[in-house]
């Protein structure tokens, strides 16, 4: 039995990057092409080690840059292969044009983006601005909170991307440093169990692929209505992503015993008067603060945003309807609106949830720690707004 087939169920203390590498390896990608960049380097180094040890049986292409990496995985995906790449900030923007290709060709590539601040102000630090900068490339985007979720989400990403009704590339985002280098106990499932979970894809129709020698190709000019038609098909596929993310999460829960709530996770929101919405590693810290505030009698809840693109309008509206005030914690900024980007998108559903006070908090830029004290401050501010006090719409912390 090959080394790959012997990967059995085990629990190890590993970093977020290593968890992502395990997640990718367990899905048996055909082609991996990536270029190192802090804070992702360990991920592709681990994959290279798996490959060298015979645990990962794939074509591992050591490209000279991220633009090539994206082009390689896009091409390989269009030839029918299961592909994987990983990058961060500078690398993500270096592959910008190729990302549009991958999405436009509907190639189901899975990519990890380790959140790091993008170019302009040099920083080797975590921040979600890189994820924000590729919002509308047409990729599905998900965000992880813990190392276990990174591994699980990577497996779910392949299930989602390659679903015949979806056929879209998927990015998994997680915070650099606070998650990429965070070592936690992670359960690594047995590879046969992952094979079984993904086997549903085999019973679906096959997507069109490039075949050497055959007169078939992708990338024709989208002339006139042809272009519009393909754009509408892409949008429709994005719409279908939302319910399927919930289904996939439930299927994963049944197969592996771990569920994450699907598009969003609600934490103590049912009877909450005020809610904080956030994503990524800050969610973990926020949970402890919410519990402490609840002990003091404050009825506060938390919404964890897992799916970012497409934006989970229906489920978020459901969770926030009837609340007295809402705060959104962003780890990035939206230049056009002077607030956080997730805040701006949450504000856009005001008509669904009632025009209540909504507050934007910006924290955690460039590795700045989102501490329990900061989150406590945010919750107090949201509470005061819910009581009718005048409030500042946008607050930058610290």
């Amino acid at each position, binding site marked *: 039995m090959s080394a790959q087939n012997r990967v059995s169920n085990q629990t190890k203390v590993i*970093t977020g990057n290593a968890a992502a590498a395990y997640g990718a390896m367990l899905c048996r990608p055909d082609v991996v092409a990536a270029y190192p960049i802090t804070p992702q380097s360990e991920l592709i180094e681990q994959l290279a080690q798996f490959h060298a040890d015979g645990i990962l049986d794939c074509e591992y292409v050591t490209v000279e840059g991220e633009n090539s990496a994206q082009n390689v995985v896009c091409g390989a995906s269009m030839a029918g292969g299961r592909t994987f790449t990983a990058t961060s900030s500078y690398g993500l923007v270096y592959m910008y044009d190729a990302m549009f290709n991958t999405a436009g060709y509907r190639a189901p590539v899975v990519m990890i983006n380790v959140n790091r601040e993008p170019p302009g102000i040099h920083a*080797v630090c975590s921040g979600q601005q890189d994820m924000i900068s590729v919002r509308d490339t047409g990729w599905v985007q998900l965000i992880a909170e813990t190392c276990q979720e990174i591994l699980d989400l990577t497996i779910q990403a392949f299930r989602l991307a390659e679903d015949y009704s979806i056929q879209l590339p998927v990015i998994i985002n997680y915070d650099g*440093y606070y998650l990429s*280098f965070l*070592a936690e*106990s992670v359960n690594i499932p047995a590879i046969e169990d992952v094979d079984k979970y993904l086997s549903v894809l085999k019973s679906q129709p096959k997507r069109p692929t490039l075949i050497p020698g055959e007169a078939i190709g992708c990338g024709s000019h989208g002339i006139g209505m042809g272009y519009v038609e393909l754009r509408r098909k892409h949008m429709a596929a994005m719409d279908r992503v939302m319910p399927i993310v919930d289904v996939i999460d439930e299927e994963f829960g049944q197969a592996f015993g771990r569920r994450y709530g699907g598009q969003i996770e609600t934490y103590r929101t049912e009877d909450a008067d005020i809610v904080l919405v956030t994503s990524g590693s800050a969610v973990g*810290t926020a949970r402890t603060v919410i519990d402490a505030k609840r002990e003091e009698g404050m009825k506060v809840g938390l919404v964890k945003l897992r799916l970012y693109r497409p934006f989970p309008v229906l489920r978020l509206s459901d969770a926030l309807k009837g609340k007295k005030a809402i705060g959104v914690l962003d780890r990035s900024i939206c230049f056009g609106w002077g607030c956080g980007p997730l805040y701006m998108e949450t504000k856009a559903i005001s008509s669904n949830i009632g025009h209540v006070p909504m507050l934007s908090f910006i924290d955690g830029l460039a*590795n700045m*720690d989102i501490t329990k004290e900061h989150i406590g401050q945010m919750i107090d501010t949201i509470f005061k707004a819910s009581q009718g006090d005048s409030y500042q719409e946008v607050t930058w912390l610290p």
Partner: protein
Amino acid sequence: MSGKEIRFHGRGGQGAVMAAKMLASVMAREGKHVASFPMYGFERRGMPVIAFTRFNDEIIREKTQIYAPDCLMVIDPTLLSLETLFTGLKPGGILILNSPRQLETQPSQNLEKAGIINATHVALCEIGRDIPNTCLIGAMAKTTGWFSLDSVIKGMEDYLTGSMLKKNIRNAERGYDEVEVQRWQ
């Protein structure tokens, strides 16, 4: 024993990040929930590195840096002059220090005891290179009493093999045996 927070101070190349991760592995083997991560800007030798490790009976959900450590491990003695080194140390705090000398004064009011060992010297003897981290973890086991030397040795198997593992086991054992504990009231 309730949960503990440990902050590691070192320089790139000395194994501070590895020490923090190894401690997490050790405590995971003792059945605790663990979380460990480093904070640094540029990945290069000589740059100051801070690492954080938490362990607890409960699941650890927060992902912040450590502001009120129960224990500090200082891998490079030149870092002792850092003004912020002892910031936030909890009363009854413990220091594990790589140094050839005992401390002349109590560097922080909250510091109750310090486990001091010339780990650089031990590492140069046992491993042949200035990688004092496993020696200091052995010293930490003895000084704090929070985990056994046996768990340390088993925890190292997650990261090392062959002769490197044997050398580091000797490193850790000597750290455990030779650490000198200084106490203050």
